């Protein structure tokens, strides 16, 4: 219990550190957002810039600004966007379900695909599943997700005329982005699954299981599943990190009204409050995933780490 409490405290500290680093980066870099905003609005001038700075709270010392932001953020208020002066939290709450569906749905489907493919590949090394998983892995490493997404769009919508992805309503427009994220996740995770099962196959006790009369398939699954789960969970953390970025790209390619649109526009406009909120959100998500993965591994494999 104390170990779990310590891990949770470490997560909170790490989150604070990431948020503070982000905040410092935005405050220390040259370029005054108030001046940029005034310039874009065509009302540049020292007077207006100073008024904007006061209105946005930029005239306080950075430490005060950070404490102010932190207190409000913990209460669920991420402040107002520089660009359109609307509450960021409301905007994010409207967009987050789309992004979460693409990311979580894609990763879940990817894990299922990876386990099936990796198991089949380990059962018959050099067989079709092995080649398919290697081809997917090469694709995931060497091709950009947006390129694969556009090619998929071209094949599905232009050549085959199966669906109308850009004009589809509601849940239909989630199909292709989820598939894209799932394909890329499966590509790298299937090799992990395959390697874990290969380790099981090479173990002495696996021969014993075969000698008992189990088929290779049954022995590999019933004796190897836990070992594979451990490897899989350990590699889910870096994979989740990729999925956050991959989801952003998939949303833009397929026109999903998720967070990415807003964030990409905020980068171009230097809308720091939006980016700060996004960074805090992603940091909280990734640290939670990391903590959950660690606790699950400890529960599955209670032997103390060497």
């Amino acid at each position, binding site marked *: 219990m104390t170990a779990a409490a310590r891990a949770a405290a470490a997560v909170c500290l*790490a989150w604070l550190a990431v948020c503070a680093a*982000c905040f410092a*980066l*935005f405050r220390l*870099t040259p370029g005054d957002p108030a001046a940029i905003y005034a310039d874009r609005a065509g009302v540049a001038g020292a007077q207006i810039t100073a008024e904007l700075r006061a209105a946005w709270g930029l005239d306080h010392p950075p430490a005060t600004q950070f404490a102010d932001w932190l207190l409000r953020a913990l209460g669920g208020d991420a402040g107002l966007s520089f660009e359109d002066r609307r509450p960021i939290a409301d905007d994010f709450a409207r967009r987050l379900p789309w992004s979460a569906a693409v990311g979580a749905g894609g990763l879940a489907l990817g894990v299922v695909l990876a386990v099936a493919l990796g198991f089949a590949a380990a059962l018959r090394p050099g067989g079709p599943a092995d080649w398919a998983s*290697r081809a997917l*892995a*090469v694709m*995931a*490493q*060497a*091709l*950009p*997700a*947006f*390129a694969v997404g*556009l*090619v998929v*769009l*071209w094949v599905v*919508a*232009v050549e085959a005329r199966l669906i109308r992805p850009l004009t589809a309503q509601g849940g239909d427009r989630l199909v292709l982005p989820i598939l894209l994220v799932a394909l890329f996740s499966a590509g*790298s995770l299937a*090799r*992990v699954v395959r*390697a874990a099962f*290969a*380790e099981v*196959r*090479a*173990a002495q006790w696996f021969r014993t299981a075969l000698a008992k009369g189990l088929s290779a398939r049954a022995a590999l699954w019933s004796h190897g599943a836990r070992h594979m789960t451990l490897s899989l969970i350990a*590699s889910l*953390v*870096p994979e*989740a*990190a*990729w999925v*956050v*970025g*991959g989801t*952003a*790209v998939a949303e*833009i390619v397929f026109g999903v009204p998720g967070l990415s649109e807003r*964030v*990409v526009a*905020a*980068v*171009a406009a*230097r809308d*720091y409050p939006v*980016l700060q909120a*996004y*960074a805090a959100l*992603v940091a909280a998500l*990734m*640290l939670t*995933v*990391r903590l959950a993965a660690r606790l699950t591994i400890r529960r599955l494999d209670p032997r103390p780490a060497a």
Partner: protein
Amino acid sequence: MRLVPAGVVLAALGVLAAQAPGVTVDLDAMLAPPSAAHPLGTDHLGRDLLARLAVGVAPTLRAVAAALVGALGLGVAAGAAMALGPALMRATLEGLADLALSLPTLVVALVLAAALGAGSLAIGVALAITGWAPYALTVAALADRVRGEEYWHAARALGVGPVAGFRRHILPAIAPRLGALAGADAGRAVLMAASLGFLGLGVDTGRPDWGGLVHEYRLFLFHAPRLVLAPVAMIALVSLALHLAFDPLRPMHRRGAGGRGFRPPRWRR
């Protein structure tokens, strides 16, 4: 042997960048199909597609160079500090490496692009921040092993300092592994530069890189798919060549049975 495809691709890129004609607008030749004058055809403003691809060579290679220098330098330095420094430094750096492994590269690149302006610098720093950890962990793990060898003790007994010893006895022993990591990272840098370009955050929207071209031409996907497929093919070709040059999938594939203590960290994208 495995360096041959990468060499061929790099040489072809050099020829392309040097030989391609300048980009000119020619409204009489809008969306012309491939011909002798325009090997890949022209775009909606009559610009030669091949010439536009040539413009993207330099920003791509700059991003790769910035990313490799940053991640390798930071990673080797951190790994050396982990292996040779006091226990507290090692624990701190290990915690930081663990944290870095869960940073989403694209998000870091977006944040940096907002703060520093989009470009090779933002891409390089983003890949260095998120990519140094595998190098550091590899260096530290292999350095631990070398420090058990007799030649290390002999060198230390002869009065060789830790830093000189690291350079002379540890770095050569771990160079091949670092090379494999660097190959994967170079490929990632190409993809990252392309992704930022595609999101419309490329270096210079007037002279777009390949990702920027895809962004610009994505509306023509249905009418003239070659405009999108050509830059996509360039990105895939360069990234694949860099990957194959160091073949990161081979050790991943082979590390099956045995488990001889050291296991290379998983590749990130």
